[in-house]
């Protein structure tokens, strides 16, 4: 990633989020999401095995880790798109065990996807309008009577247009989403997620495939979410971005949380350097997570 992708202003980091020493599973002062003993196995493969993790409220938390660390699977489990073999997890104090994904979304926990899911053959505006919750016109019988939903629909349109302006997509509102570029689709997906008025936004690799100029505005948008009182959890491989905007970093490897802490400290952590950032590329990941012990090297 090039160095010119800094956010336009220096972000104000939230500090003092945790209680006690930063370590995997450390307690937070005000956690919004708490997961306990989450295990997800695919046949013989244990993709996720998280003992305990807490996500701090009104902060930007980055989830990093090597490919195959189980980050996206963990995302899927937290948002109800997949169910774990074991474990409990709660959002805002409400248990999410067995809650289907659409109900999780209605509670205010909204996610985006690693492979962008723009609804290609709908216009950008229709994509946005779909995000709004509690629409009267989405009920079968009332949809037949436009008088019942026309007013609400035009209010939604105003709200959508404001968001599109913020994301610089307002000129495209009549185009099919399929005609947008990859980066614009990422923006659209994020804007659509914001239409739901979420409390926790989970972004799966928001920067993947986005050019530096767009990255900059995306970073600003993410920082903006925090100032508006939302909580952000994102998966990202771009360390530059993580260091700049994240208040807290959680590192996963082989399905486990191996380190936690403020970005600068975490990136000095030898386990993280070994597992992810690189320096001992020839070392087996298992040696880092403690799954196997290597003979002493000479």
């Amino acid at each position, binding site marked *: 990633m090039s160095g010119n992708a800094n956010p336009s202003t220096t972000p104000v980091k939230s500090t003092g989020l945790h209680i006690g020493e930063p370590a995997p599973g450390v307690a937070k002062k005000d956690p919004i999401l708490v997961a306990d003993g989450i295990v997800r196995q695919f046949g013989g493969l244990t993709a996720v095995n998280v003992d305990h993790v807490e996500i701090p409220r009104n902060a930007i938390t980055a989830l990093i880790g090597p490919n195959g660390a189980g980050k996206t699977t963990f995302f899927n489990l937290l948002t109800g798109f997949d169910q774990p073999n074991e474990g409990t997890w709660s959002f805002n104090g409400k248990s999410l065990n067995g809650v289907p994904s659409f109900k999780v979304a209605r509670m205010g926990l909204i996610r*985006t996807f690693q492979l962008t899911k723009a609804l290609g*053959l709908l216009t950008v505006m229709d994509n946005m309008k779909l995000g709004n919750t509690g629409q009267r016109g989405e009920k079968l019988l009332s*949809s037949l009577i436009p008088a019942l939903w026309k007013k609400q629909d035009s209010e939604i349109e105003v709200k959508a247009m404001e968001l599109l302006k913020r994301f610089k997509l307002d000129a495209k509102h009549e185009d099919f989403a399929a005609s947008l570029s990859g980066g614009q689709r990422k923006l659209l997906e994020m804007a659509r997620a914001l239409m739901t008025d979420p409390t926790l936004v989970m972004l799966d690799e928001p920067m993947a495939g986005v050019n530096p100029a767009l990255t900059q505005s995306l970073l600003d948008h993410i920082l903006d979410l925090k100032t508006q009182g939302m909580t952000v959890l994102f998966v990202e491989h771009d360390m530059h971005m993580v260091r700049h905007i994240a208040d807290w970093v959680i590192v996963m490897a082989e399905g486990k949380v191996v380190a936690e802490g403020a970005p600068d400290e975490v990136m000095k952590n030898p386990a993280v350097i070994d597992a992810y950032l690189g320096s001992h590329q020839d070392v087996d990941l298992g040696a880092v997570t403690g799954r196997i012990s290597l003979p002493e090297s000479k």
Partner: protein
Amino acid sequence: MDILGILNSTAGFVLAPVTIAYALAALGLAVHFGFAGLLNMGMAGFMALGAYGYAMGILSFGLPWYLAALVGLGAAVVFALILGIPTLRLRGDYLAIVTIAAAEILRLLFLTKTFDEYTGSADGLFGYNGEFQEANPIADGTYGFPPFEDTAATWWVRIVGLLILAIATFAVWRLVNSPWGRVLKGIREDEDAIRSLGKNVFTYKMQALIIGGVLGAMGGLVLAMSSNVNQGQYVTSLTFFIWTALLLGGAATVFGPLVGSLIFWVLQAFLGLLFPAMAEAGLLLGLTSIQAAQIKYIIVGVALVLIVVFRPQGIFGNKKELTFVR
């Protein structure tokens, strides 16, 4: 060769009850496939339920004709629920396999001797339209001008059929242009994205399956009102004919299915008369007229292939709106 006679008979199909029936079923399929992305390959089954429900309601249960019609539509709702509960959670292709099988199971249940008392098995059901025709406000006689000259009985079926079609088309048009329709189109594009926005995808798909199924049953109802009911009408090829009509007009449109059915029937009637006449005149390399009558089905197959390859959006569809191959 009597070209004028052929054209005259063909024109009669423009407003034939069978055209109206196809239009209704194709409209149902548009809701299923064009808007919700549900690959329903069992439309013939929904139509059969509409027709048999109506006929059996009158003959076996002695209901008045309008209540019997509701029995047919209600049967389609039940059928959609039975089909949808296990299959709508799965990927689209499974629904296609299950619906094609379910429609055949239904047809074979109507064929079996076991329920002969109710279904008439291979003979089908007839002689149930008396009360419906008694309600006919038009005095006996023939009305209209050639080629649209018909008896009062046919006009009555036609008027009722067109009324049903008009109401159904208006309702579907309202539905797909509402926020409800927006969610449905979103589901067609990507279910998971819609789920992540807090919509109950299963409920929407079930509603679409029921609405489209009831429209198919209305098609069967109109067919039953115009003639007798026989399981031989509700074979799998009926489903494919309706798919052809739908794709011809445009799957993701409201008026496409109507125009598609019209073109399909007019063309099919025209070719069905033209080829035998040509064979009799010795213009078809010595084919008998019976052989020549089958050529139209070959043409239907070739036409379906050509539409899907070269104009997947149909006559009315926007090229960008629906690409058949994704």
